[in-house]
């Protein structure tokens, strides 16, 4: 074998073949530069997100000009009447800003949860509601609406029910024997999910068709139209905490994506990584569904697109998913407000945008399979 003798190289790594070492130094530097291109793309996305937020603040039934926005911080900017300024302030703080923040948080959270789930379950067709979180939360919300509870109570019930569904999935998957643990978990999740879907169907059948049924139906389609500042306080801690933990675990997630057996042989405490990933992704999904209803496709599609753009390495994939998820949901919400006079449910818009993209992805992966 040519090149430095591996024997010496292993024994004294720093003395391995002088001639080759300089070449390796160069490539290692190139490797770091590559990390920088990843960071550059992340910076570009961050800027795009900031721009999207500003533009989105102006969208809506009452469009705001840039001057309107600026005079909030610089009162002397324009000579508009004090009453107008008060309207703008109220509109922005009470309606526009909570809505935009919720879109950012939910889009980012669902996407990063979806990307983590796809890595963990080694399947790029997995979405964050795979363990029943969405159906559980939807059932809780439908029940809350049936019982004529207040909005905060409905959301809390949805959140609790979403977590409950996932706990049920865990519990049931432990009692079942045989098969691989992850596979059992996914199968049980599907079972629990359809159980709660059946529950929703029962509630819809029993609901008053004039008052309750439309509410339930509309809620199931997902919307950000009724997001308030209290919702933000409910959304913020789970999404920020969950996403932070998932982002911290992105390198071990790479190893997990090779399969748990291999991850373990590489020195990853697989149980811990799996546990934290599942808990965080579930928290994010449940709270997102509790606040905004069922918004499909984001957690499935955004990680997919991000993977095409930046590659499979979760070190870059997770931040890119997070940022592009936030941008995607912001614009989907803008479209929902802007497309028709009547506001479209957000779930409809994400689905309409998601299906063509997803078909494209399926076509591409089919080509990969046939190779």
């Amino acid at each position: 074998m040519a090149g430095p003798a591996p024997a010496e190289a292993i024994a004294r790594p720093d003395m391995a073949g002088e001639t080759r070492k300089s070449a390796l130094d160069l490539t290692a530097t190139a490797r770091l530069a590559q990390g920088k291109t990843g960071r550059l793309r992340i910076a570009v996305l961050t800027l795009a997100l900031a721009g999207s937020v500003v533009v989105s603040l102006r969208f809506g039934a009452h469009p705001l000009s840039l001057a309107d926005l600026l005079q909030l911080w610089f009162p002397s900017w324009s000579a508009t009447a004090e009453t107008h300024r008060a309207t703008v302030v109220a509109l922005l703080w009470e309606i526009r800003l909570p809505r935009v923040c919720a879109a950012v948080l939910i889009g980012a959270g669902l996407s990063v949860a979806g990307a983590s789930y796809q890595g963990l379950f080694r399947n790029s067709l997995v979405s964050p509601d795979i363990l029943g979180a969405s159906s559980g939360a939807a059932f809780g919300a439908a029940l809350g609406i049936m019982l004529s509870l207040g909005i905060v109570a409905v959301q809390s019930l949805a959140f609790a029910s979403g977590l409950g569904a996932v706990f049920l999935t865990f519990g049931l998957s432990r009692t079942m024997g045989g098969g691989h643990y992850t596979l059992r978990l996914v199968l049980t999740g599907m079972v629990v999910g359809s159980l709660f879907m059946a529950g929703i169907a029962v509630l819809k059948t029993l609901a008053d068709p004039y008052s309750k049924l439309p509410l339930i139906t509309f809620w199931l389609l997902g919307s950000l139209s009724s997001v308030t500042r209290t919702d933000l306080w409910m959304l913020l801690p789970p999404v920020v905490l969950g996403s932070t933990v998932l982002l911290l675990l992105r390198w071990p997630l790479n190893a997990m994506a090779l399969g748990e057996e291999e991850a373990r042989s590489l020195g990853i405490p697989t149980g811990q990584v799996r546990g934290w990933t599942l808990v965080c992704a579930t928290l994010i999904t449940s709270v997102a569904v509790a606040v905004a209803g069922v918004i499909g496709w984001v957690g499935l599609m955004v990680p997919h697109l991000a993977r095409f753009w930046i590659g499979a390495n979760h070190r870059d994939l997770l931040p890119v998913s997070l940022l592009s998820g936030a941008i995607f949901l912001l614009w989907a919400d803008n479209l929902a407000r802007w497309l028709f006079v009547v506001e479209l449910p957000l779930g409809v818009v994400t689905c309409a945008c998601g299906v063509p993209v997803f078909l494209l992805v399926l076509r591409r992966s089919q080509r990969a399979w046939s190779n």
Partner: protein
Amino acid sequence: MRLSIENLSCGYTRLPVLSGVNLAIEAGEFVCLLGPNGSGKTALLKTLAGILSPLSGQVKLDETRWTDLPVRERAAHLAYVPQAHAPVFAFKVIDLVAMGRTARWPLWAGPTEVDWRAAEQALAWVQMEAFADRLFTEISGGERQMVLVARALAQEARFLVLDEPASSLDFGNQVRMLQTLRRLTRAGIGVLMATHHPEHALRCASRVAVVREGRIRQIGPPNEVLTESCLAEVYRVPFLVSEIFDQQNLPVRVCVPQLD
């Protein structure tokens, strides 16, 4: 350093596929594991890699029980090369090799410049440095096998456990792989390799363990263990074992199957 397996039973369920295993590997030794398909070679290697837990008996690193060590520390002592597999995600070769160093940083951190350099070097040892930026999903099975060996080298462990690393390699790469492994043993690394090639064991193993019907039947130097009758019993086909002489007129033992 010494990795000793004491009275170990291992298997995928509660039923052991291999039991009563007693085997010690010294650092710097090259041990081959031979046996027919389904004889439990992989189960033994997976138990050593910490993927399966021992059903009974134990594994010890010097005087420390293997199961008392955290996963992370085990990975620093023993690297495992699985059988070649098709991954789900299209990781870059260099990223995959860098994953071999995962046990060296805290759970929330990632590779540093030192780690990238070690990964590059590991690729160079198996002469695969040109593949660093290729996608692991888009290279051939043999190339994947070499990359997995590079990942284990990047792990810089004292013991190397390989599951049929030569299975999808062409003839030249098989020989190159054996040479790489032999150089590693000379550097003080203990190698345990499961193989379906008795000639590999004859050529470079310091000891060979023959597994058949749930037990290790024989352990010893390959020239003593791998006789015609032993090979015929293991593979249930007749073999010819003979000696040829190399340029220095030293005997080299070879084995070939006998056809009708």
